[in-house]
């Protein structure tokens, strides 16, 4: 192995109370394609953001060419020769290709007036080597997504980067686009440029990488040479110790008419998804980022248009028009992002908890304050909210307590079917166990629960059966009692198909 170009050791970072990285490490050799894999939330993105200067670590050391360096900003990373291509391309669609390449680029001569000829001349060689077929004068927004990705690569090259981080670069690309990108990656490798390739698509990783580093729960589990390992070994490292079987006392009531039956559901992001949820059942929904888990909730709740397929609630076919309509049908949706889609951050805990059913506590439009207070404190107690001031803005609560407020809000609507979209994201351990207990008791009461989670042990712990999605398609429904994390992960990564 050649000498290490980059060596990061003992990197730790926490956001609020959440530890994103604990003593993580990564080393990359010159001219190497180094894949970093891990489940959602394993710390891949945080680690790359620290090395590329977007986030500052709490502790740890970074060595570049053997020298200890501190990377305080993206600019200082750029000076060293490190750049990053983000998942959501960090480019400006309303600027031209050339403008996108030179903006904030330290290798471009600074002047007050733009000489467009000179800018074009600067960009052209890099665009050629990245195989961008469009003129530097073209608006970036007019390019197909694959070409935009290559512009980002050309930009990284023009900055004189010796190490490029790519975060899920193929997620937005078609097969052809991905093939072109892989070809370019091989070419750069020959020129001695190193690539850190963050992905969870096994097939790709094994196709292009030299080594693979696996992360889990903010820690580096290990690094393997690609030729000497297997997808099975990598998956086992990603999920940790083999955990199998649900320890849940099932409360499923098998009835001829399930509470919810979905057949051939197809939307812009889902293809032909079918499943049933019975009273007292917790159906897990597993899948990687972009598999269509949240989109399933959006389709059921009347937020996304359904192209084809049928939804039956208590045996009757329904066409959900809006969230309001969904609520009258007895559906509830706890959205994935509680800040953006769930809570009114400036409003109080109590006001948030009763918002969905406020009209029930009113006479001629006036809120019956006493009743609102009583019902709110009852429900917040039932979700074990630890907060002594229902009048405080919900933004002052911890993530776990915020999630409990949101859960309480949906429980007040008395839904029969509750879609919980990753309820334990950014939630502390204590609150997590409370939420598990609540899910158990809701199922015991005879509700049907759909539980989305990116953590497999959680799904195995809480669910009766687990629906596994991959790129909008159902890869199968497994029994939580008999399945393993490995089985779910291979369905989710579609490795079993190969």
């Amino acid at each position: 192995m050649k000498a290490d170009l980059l060596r990061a050791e003992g990197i730790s970072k926490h956001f609020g109370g959440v530890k994103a990285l604990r003593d993580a490490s990564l080393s990359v050799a010159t001219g190497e394609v180094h894949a970093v894999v891990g489940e959602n939330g394993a710390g891949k993105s945080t680690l790359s953001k620290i090395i590329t200067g977007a986030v500052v670590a709490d502790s740890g050391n970074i060595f570049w060419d053997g020298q200890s360096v501190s990377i305080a900003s993206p600019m200082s990373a750029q000076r060293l020769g490190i750049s990053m291509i983000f998942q959501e391309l960090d480019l400006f669609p309303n600027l031209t290709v050339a403008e996108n390449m030179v903006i904030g680029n330290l290798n471009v001569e600074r002047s007050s007036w733009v000489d467009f000829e000179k800018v074009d001349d600067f960009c052209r060689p890099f665009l050629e080597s990245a195989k961008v077929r469009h003129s530097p004068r073209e608006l970036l927004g007019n390019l197909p997504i694959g070409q935009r990705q290559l512009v980002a690569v050309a930009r990284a090259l023009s900055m004189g980067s010796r190490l490029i981080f790519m975060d899920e670069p193929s997620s937005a690309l078609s097969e052809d686009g991905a093939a072109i990108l892989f070809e370019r990656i091989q070419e750069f490798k020959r020129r001695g440029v190193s690539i850190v390739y963050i992905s969870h698509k096994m097939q790709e990783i094994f196709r292009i990488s030299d080594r693979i580093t696996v992360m889990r729960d903010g820690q580096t589990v290990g690094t393997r040479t690609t030729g000497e390992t297997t997808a099975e070994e990598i998956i086992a490292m990603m999920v940790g110790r083999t955990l199998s079987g649900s320890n849940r006392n099932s409360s499923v009531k098998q009835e001829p008419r399930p509470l919810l039956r979905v057949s051939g559901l197809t939307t812009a992001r889902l293809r032909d998804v079918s499943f049933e949820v019975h009273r007292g059942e917790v159906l897990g929904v597993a899948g990687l980022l972009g598999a269509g888990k949240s989109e399933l909730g959006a389709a059921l709740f009347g937020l996304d248009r359904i192209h084809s397929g049928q939804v039956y609630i208590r045996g009757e076919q329904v066409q959900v028009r809006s969230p309001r309509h969904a609520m009258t049908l007895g559906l509830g949706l706890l959205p994935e992002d509680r800040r953006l889609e769930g809570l009114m951050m400036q409003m109080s805990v109590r006001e948030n908890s009763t918002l969905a059913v406020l009209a029930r506590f009113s006479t001629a439009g006036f809120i019956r304050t006493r009743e609102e207070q009583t019902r709110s404190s009852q429900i917040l107690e039932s979700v074990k909210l630890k907060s002594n001031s229902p009048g405080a803005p919900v933004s002052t609560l911890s993530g776990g307590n915020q999630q409990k407020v949101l859960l309480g809000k949906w429980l007040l609507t008395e839904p029969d079917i509750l879609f919980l979209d990753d309820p334990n994201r950014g939630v502390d351990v204590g609150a997590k166990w409370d939420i598990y207990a609540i899910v158990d008791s809701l199922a015991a009461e005879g509700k049907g629960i759909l539980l989305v989670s990116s953590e497999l042990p959680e799904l195995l712990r809480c669910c009766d059966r687990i629906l596994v999605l991959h790129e909008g398609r159902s890869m199968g429904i497994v029994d939580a009692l008999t399945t393993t994390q490995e089985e779910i992960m291979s369905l989710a990564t579609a490795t079993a198909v190969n």
Partner: protein
Amino acid sequence: MPAIAPASPVRSPVKRLAGKLQSVIGLAGIVILAILLSPTTPDGANVFLQLGNLTDILRQISVIGIIALAMTFVILTAGIDLSVGSTLALSTSVMALCLTAWHPAVGMVGHILLSAFAAALVCGAIGLVNGAVISVAGIQPFIVTLATMIGVRGLAKWMTGNANIDIGFGTDDAAVFAAFAREKATVIATFAILACLFWLCLSKTVFGRYVRAIGDNEQAGLYTGLPVRRIKAYVYTLCGLLAGVSGILYTGENHQGNPNAGVGYELDAIAAVVVGGTSLSGGKGSISGTIVGTLILGVLTNMLRLKNVDSNVEMMLKAAIIVIAVALQRTRWRRDT
């Protein structure tokens, strides 16, 4: 971003009260300054504190104050309504036309009430159009109401042939209306009653809660199944309606229907709302704040006029007050979250 620590310290009640009272403290400061700076009458009385002067202030702020009440609702939903000044002009035009050029056989009171009803109805309809376009077509409120501001001004001028419609001092219906509507008691009572109604609406009703909710987080409002579009349509309708009411009072006070009235009133109303602590990004604000904001600007104007300060200098000082008031609130907000 608030740092979310499990043990987030809850502010003490005293601090919270001080936070709430900050704009009131600002008002108190301005009032004290006005008392200190006020000239005195020959017999030694403080001019600012004379009952006549104080009620003058209330009368002067009422026209803008009424608009600012509804503007608070609009701004709470993270919107803006630039059309209220033009709508006020339309209201005065409709009111004066109905009073002078229309003679229904319904008696004097009936005639006056019908005229007022017509003016309010037309203005409410303008507001409804604003609200419908904003919520259904999804165009930014700034642009929609900018268009209405231009179009409605045109409508008022076209209706009146771009001439004032004067109301005399005789005993005809129009003159009787004007004599009644220009009474301090009428103007101040109208503002006071509307302020109470809007305060009740915002703090005690489901509608008021929804208004704050969708301004705080519209996306979450949709996910919660709130009637987001309808609420938006309603707040703009209310805003048009209150601009209409203001216009009716304006007609009486000035003894004329004036298609060129109310230029820049939208900005005065917005200023009163933001000085009162309502955030332009929505979700945070109150009617009591808006009333205090209106009073701060009104007392400031009165204080400067009593000192015979040049009205152009007055504008410059007003500008400074607006920025300082909002800057103070921002620092408080940062500490809060």
